[in-house]
């Protein structure tokens, strides 16, 4: 349990420290070290959960079970590797004169602020605190989206702030309704604790819970980026600094989905029906298809991959909504590989944009000839995210397809169509970027591609063979979420 407190304290200390010292030379390395220590702490936490099962802290404030502990490790891992990339990237941006000292302070301080909010969302046992932390994550990142202070970035940040703020307000209404239903059973002081709620799930009023779930899905769904609530996502991803895009895509979206799945587990227990699942399937499938189509009409490379994030989040929401052990297992796996691959892609995209001096895809050409490592990184990342074997995304998408064929065979063609459209949408843009002649005056830059290789390596490993401890872990989480073993 000490691990959780340490984890939260470390990030909180980071906020204060960087707020004062964030502009110093080589401060990025310190940020990396803090995130590295956080990663070690989460691994320690994971091992103790693996050995001793679910941990509930003394005051019942924190709950660590097999579902959230793996997301905690994933969060720390992506946070760490992104900070590896962020240190030279931000130093380069500062050299270009895009950033001042005070903005660097803000950046590093809020990097830790965002990590703190994410850890709190995952570890807390209280639904209300989860909402507060989720809103906190928006507040921490909103000024980072407008870090460059261009008119576009300010517009993007304003949109992000208003849409996510209003969206998440709906989730608070859902939470209040849920609290209302729960406090009728008694013990109102503890009625928002997950442990108490799960214990009494069958006694909760199903009518109220159905209404509450609609609000919760819309609220947290805004953060997942579900169509038609997705408008903020491509703007926020494309206008902010690239390390921010990597953590937003790799972490924030996952954690919002985590919130929805937790609520679904509760509502399923209370209503004994599949209504929550159907809602998630509908929203998920629409997001998946619409985002796949939008991929074709993009001009900005970061916007392209943010639509790809919407597409994948849609697929996961769909799979979690379908329920059952196979689909849930597939969704958990997909969450992992998507985070790994997408943050790797954003890292290479960051380097690509620095090489070409622009994010407009029409002007980025001949990447492999300019800097082979970055070019191949981008190409392999795109291959992986499009769902080619032998990468992990193929495995998880294949499992989702299998589960769909088993439960809802008539939806399979739609999924296949979506995957095909998305593949075409990605490759028609990326192919001319990596191949082709290099334009005049384009030269290589100092790039740190270790995070990319590590992420893609893991994605490859998960595609070839899932290590037994990890699959045990996913199975435990699957049992917890879907109620049946694989």
């Amino acid at each position: 349990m000490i691990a959780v407190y340490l984890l939260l304290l470390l990030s909180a200390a980071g906020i204060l420290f960087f707020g004062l010292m964030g502009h110093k030379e080589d401060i990025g390395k310190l940020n990396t070290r803090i995130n590295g220590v956080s990663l070690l702490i989460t691994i320690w936490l994971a091992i103790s959960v693996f050995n001793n099962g679910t941990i509930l802290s003394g005051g019942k404030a924190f709950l660590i079970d097999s579902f959230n502990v793996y997301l905690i490790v994933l969060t720390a891992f992506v946070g760490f590797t992104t900070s590896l990339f962020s240190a030279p990237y931000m130093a380069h941006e500062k050299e270009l004169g895009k950033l001042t000292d005070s903005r660097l302070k803000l950046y590093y301080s809020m990097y830790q602020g965002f990590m703190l909010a994410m850890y709190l969302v995952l570890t807390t046992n209280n639904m209300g605190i989860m909402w507060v932390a989720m809103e906190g994550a928006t507040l921490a990142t909103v000024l980072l989206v407008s870090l460059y202070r261009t008119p576009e970035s300010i517009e993007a940040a304003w949109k992000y702030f208003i849409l996510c703020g209003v969206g998440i307000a709906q989730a608070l209404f859902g939470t209040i309704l849920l609290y209302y239903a729960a406090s009728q059973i008694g013990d109102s002081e503890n009625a928002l604790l997950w442990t108490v709620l799960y214990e009494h799930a069958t006694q909760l009023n199903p009518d109220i819970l159905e209404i509450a779930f609609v609000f919760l899905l819309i609220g947290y769904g805004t953060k997942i980026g579900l169509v038609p609530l997705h408008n903020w996502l491509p703007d926020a991803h494309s206008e902010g600094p690239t390390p921010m895009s990597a953590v937003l895509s790799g972490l924030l979206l996952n954690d919002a989905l985590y919130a929805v799945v937790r609520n679904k587990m509760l509502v399923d227990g209370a209503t004994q029906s599949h209504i929550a699942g159907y809602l998630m399937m509908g929203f998920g499938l629409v997001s998946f298809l619409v985002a796949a189509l939008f991929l074709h009409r993009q001009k900005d490379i970061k916007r392209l991959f943010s639509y790809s994030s919407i597409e994948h989040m849609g697929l996961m929401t769909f799979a979690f909504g379908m329920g059952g052990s196979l689909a849930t297992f597939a969704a958990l796996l997909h969450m992992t590989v998507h985070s790994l691959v997408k943050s790797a892609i954003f890292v290479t995209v960051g380097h690509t944009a620095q090489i070409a001096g622009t994010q407009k895809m029409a002007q980025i050409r001949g990447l492999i000839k300019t800097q082979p490592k970055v070019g191949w990184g981008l190409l392999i990342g795109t291959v992986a995210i499009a769902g080619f074997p032998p990468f992990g995304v193929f495995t998880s998408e294949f499992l989702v397809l299998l589960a769909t064929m088993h439960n809802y065979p008539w939806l399979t063609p739609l999924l296949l169509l979506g995957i095909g459209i998305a593949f075409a949408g990605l490759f028609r843009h990326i192919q001319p970027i990596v191949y082709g002649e290099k334009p005049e005056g384009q030269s290589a830059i100092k790039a740190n591609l270790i995070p990319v290789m590590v992420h893609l390596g893991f994605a490859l490993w998960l595609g070839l063979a899932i290590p037994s401890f990890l699959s045990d872990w996913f199975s435990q989480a699957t049992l917890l979420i879907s109620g049946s073993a694989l």
Partner: protein
Amino acid sequence: MNIESQDFYTQAILSMSALVGLTSFLMLGQGRLLRLIFVFAIQGLLLTLTTSLAAFSLDNPHLYISAVLTFALKVIFIPWMLQKQVLAMNLHRDVEALKNNTAVMLGGASLMVFSYYVLQPIIHTSSMIMLNALAVSLSVVLLGLMLMISHRQAVAHVVGFMSIENGLFFAAIVATNGMPMVVELGVAFDVLVAAILFGIFFLHIRTSIDSLDVDMMNKLHEVDK
């Protein structure tokens, strides 16, 4: 339901919810920013009164703390900050011509009916009073959204945003006698930070487009143009 047969507390809560709903409608049709902010402050005051009333009648001392927080944030700090912005930008003389005001008001009224319709199933589990209070809170939330859609000024958007929070707060107090203390403190903290961030944003928006009219923020599109 005969309102005279209810106890005093219930009657008071019902009147309060009616007044809170009314302030939302007043805001919806308001074209002048200073008046809009004034009505918003009144809504905050009504919320404070409701909270204190609940704290007093139900003998629940922690609600006094949230009453004080609400008063400090929603009646004093946020209206003061917004008013300062409006005066600084010299927007207080402009009257925003609202496009099809009638349609907006009618839309608002139908949103209220819709809230009652959505929350209808709750009747099975509790009283009419609960339905009324929750439906009014939901409609305050929806009217806040409507306010944001129908107005162009960033200040009006912030007022809409904050009045959504008011609706949620009202629901929390009336339906569940307030959330657990730690959650309420967290939400208040978020609102405070959001208010400060809005202040920072006004500054950025003004320097970037020299106006607070959000219609002028139109550089980003869903697809290429």
